[in-house]
């Protein structure tokens, strides 16, 4: 070995050591490749070169020097470069064209990573064998550094993806917490929107809810009219899966026209309750599967929250309504007499069973003077609060009319006029009332369309039907008729509402007038209280297990 050779070797060695030190300390791919090219340029005195690496089955230029961007751009599509590199014709043409004459693959101990291609040397000499060996050595060192840098790069990417996932999970967690607390729908919409805006950097969006077939625009950059005009053309409640921009162009071209690129349904138990429409992301990145999944999760959280708020509101309203009904029922109960007066010649007993709802049955026994007593029974059509209000009215009319000293027939006319004036929604009252004379044992009555009370005398039934039309339908035109009956000892008068005769058994059959009448005949020897008790038992036996759908009212008058 001559001294010049020795210096050369020494120089080569120190260059290699220097290169190794630098690239291995950086772990930055760009830096490593840049250094590789620079080292080659310095060693071989070249001015152009490229480093091509495999990237997921494709090869591309990772670093270049001395080449115009156009040349770098025009690098041909080359498949994976393996150990036994076979340069395809396009690649060799490219290298030739760009005067990249010296070519060497870059392989680590495990894998072939790519290749380096260098231009001709400035002194136009060929690459010597020794130079080739040097390049091979330097590439060996570089290969390890490249592998490491790629690994680090991938690790960074994985870390970033992980960060991104953690961030999404955090958002979901935070939103689910927040959605649980807030109780304004507007607020939920805003939070949903901000989360989406923050995540995807969108400037075009629309969040639409469906409620009772109507579209509610929660948040939108597009006016209600515009979006409504388009959405109404489609059955969007049928959207059960997210729709990406490609399918949107096919299925919903008009929505694409607004700049939307993604539709994500918000569904609850497989029912689509709303949709989220998102426009292009400002960074021009398409929505990935993960993104769509995230929008879908956020949307579901929001819709659950909306639904909960709605149910809560409904439950509150229902509770309030039930409370009101309960109050109405209590008031109504108080309108009925708590204690019946005791008469000399008559024994009066009454039964009143109200159904679950507030009903419109009414009865009363009012003392007029020392010998006269009014007995009244009525049934207001319909149920609920309106019926009970009308019943309360009737009671008030009756109490005041009793003090006017009118005859019972003309008094009925006045009551009818009053009721007619006070009903507007087609409600009416079937009403029966009479005056018991405790001195002369007589009963003077008017029947205004009520199911006729029964007079039972000597096992025969007589119906008390004299009167006129039901109350509340029209002003009194034809005067009501009255009838006076002189009673005998043992006579029985039974006043009732249709809740008795229409009480239903399990087979949905009425208790019926016939059954009621024959049952009454069998009881005619009993006293009033006993009769009431037995009828009550009979009805509850008959309707066993059936929900009572109507009020039941019954008054029994026994003549002593």
């Amino acid at each position: 070995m001559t001294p010049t050779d020795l210096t050369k070797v020494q120089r080569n060695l120190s260059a290699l050591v220097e290169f190794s030190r630098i690239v291995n300390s950086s772990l930055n791919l760009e830096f490593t490749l840049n250094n590789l090219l620079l080292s080659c340029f310095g060693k071989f005195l070249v001015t152009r070169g490229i480093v091509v690496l495999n990237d997921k089955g494709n090869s591309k230029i990772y670093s270049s020097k001395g080449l115009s961007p156009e040349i770098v751009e025009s690098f041909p599509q080359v498949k994976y470069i393996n150990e036994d590199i076979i340069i395809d014709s396009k690649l060799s043409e490219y290298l030739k064209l760009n005067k990249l004459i010296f070519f060497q693959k870059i392989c680590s101990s495990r894998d072939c990573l790519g290749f380096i291609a260098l231009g001709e040397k400035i002194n136009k000499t060929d690459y010597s064998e020794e130079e080739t060996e040097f390049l091979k050595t330097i590439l060996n060192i570089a290969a390890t550094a490249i592998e490491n840098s790629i690994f680090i790069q991938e690790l960074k990417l994985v870390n970033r993806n992980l960060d991104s996932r953690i961030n999404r999970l955090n958002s979901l967690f935070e939103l689910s917490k927040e959605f649980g607390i807030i109780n304004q729908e507007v607020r939920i919409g805003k939070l949903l929107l901000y989360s989406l805006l923050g995540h995807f950097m969108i400037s075009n969006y629309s969040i639409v809810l469906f409620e009772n077939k109507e579209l509610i625009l929660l948040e939108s950059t597009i006016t209600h009219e515009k979006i409504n005009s388009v959405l109404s053309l489609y059955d969007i409640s049928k959207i059960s899966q997210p729709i990406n921009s490609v399918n949107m162009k096919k299925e919903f071209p008009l929505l694409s026209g607004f700049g939307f690129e993604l539709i994500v349904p918000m569904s609850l138990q497989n029912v689509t309750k709303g949709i989220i429409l998102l426009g292009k992301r400002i960074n021009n990145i398409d929505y990935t599967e993960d993104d769509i999944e995230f929008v879908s999760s956020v949307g579901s959280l929001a819709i659950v929250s909306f639904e909960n708020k709605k149910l809560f509101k409904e439950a509150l309203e229902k509770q309030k309504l039930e409370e009101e009904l309960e109050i109405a029922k209590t008031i109504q109960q108080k309108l009925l007499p708590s204690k019946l007066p005791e008469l000399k010649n008559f024994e009066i007993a009454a039964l009143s069973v109200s159904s679950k709802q507030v009903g419109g049955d009414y009865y009363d026994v009012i003392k007029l003077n020392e010998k006269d007593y009014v007995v009244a029974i009525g049934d207001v059509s319909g149920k609920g609060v309106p019926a009970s209000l009308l019943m309360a009215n009737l009671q008030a009319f009756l109490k005041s009319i009793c003090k006017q000293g009118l005859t019972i027939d003309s008094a009925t006319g006045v009551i009818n006029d009053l009721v007619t004036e006070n009903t507007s929604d087609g409600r009416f009252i079937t009403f029966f009332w009479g005056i018991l004379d405790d001195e002369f044992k007589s009963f003077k009555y008017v029947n205004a369309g009520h199911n006729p009370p029964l007079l039972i005398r000597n096992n025969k039934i007589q119906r008390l039907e004299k009167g006129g039309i039901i109350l509340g339908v029209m002003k009194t035109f034809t005067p009501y008729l009255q009838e006076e009956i002189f009673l005998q000892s043992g006579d029985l008068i039974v006043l009732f509402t249709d809740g008795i005769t229409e009480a239903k058994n399990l087979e949905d059959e009425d208790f019926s007038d016939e059954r009621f009448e024959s049952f009454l005949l069998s009881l005619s020897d009993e006293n009033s209280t006993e009769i009431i008790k037995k009828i009550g038992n009979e009805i509850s036996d008959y309707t066993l297990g059936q929900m009572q759908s109507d009020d039941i009212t019954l008054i029994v008058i026994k003549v002593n």
Partner: protein
Amino acid sequence: MSDFSTTIREAGDVSIIELNGYLDAHTAPQLESAFSDLIDKKRFKIVANFEKLKYISSAGLGVFMAFIETIRSNNGDIKLTTMIPSVYNIFDLLGFPLLYEFFSTEKEAIDKFNQQ
């Protein structure tokens, strides 16, 4: 519950909004109303100082997105400054550097407005 507050300062026609504490789904409405107020007052040159912000979630980021178009269409901007690394990381993760200018000091951000 997490704490969050904002303080507004003026420097010429630039408004500086200082963010303090934790900005998440729960506190985002506060920032929202602060921005609304600035816009109502036609203060469109805004520097958001994150020095005292300890945490931000994507809902917080969304507030910045919600107002940026209005502000820019009025020749204004929101410039972001002095973030701690964990806060910046979220902005970076969600791609905000593409759309917003970040500065390491409040002064740089104000100067940038004044140069324009």
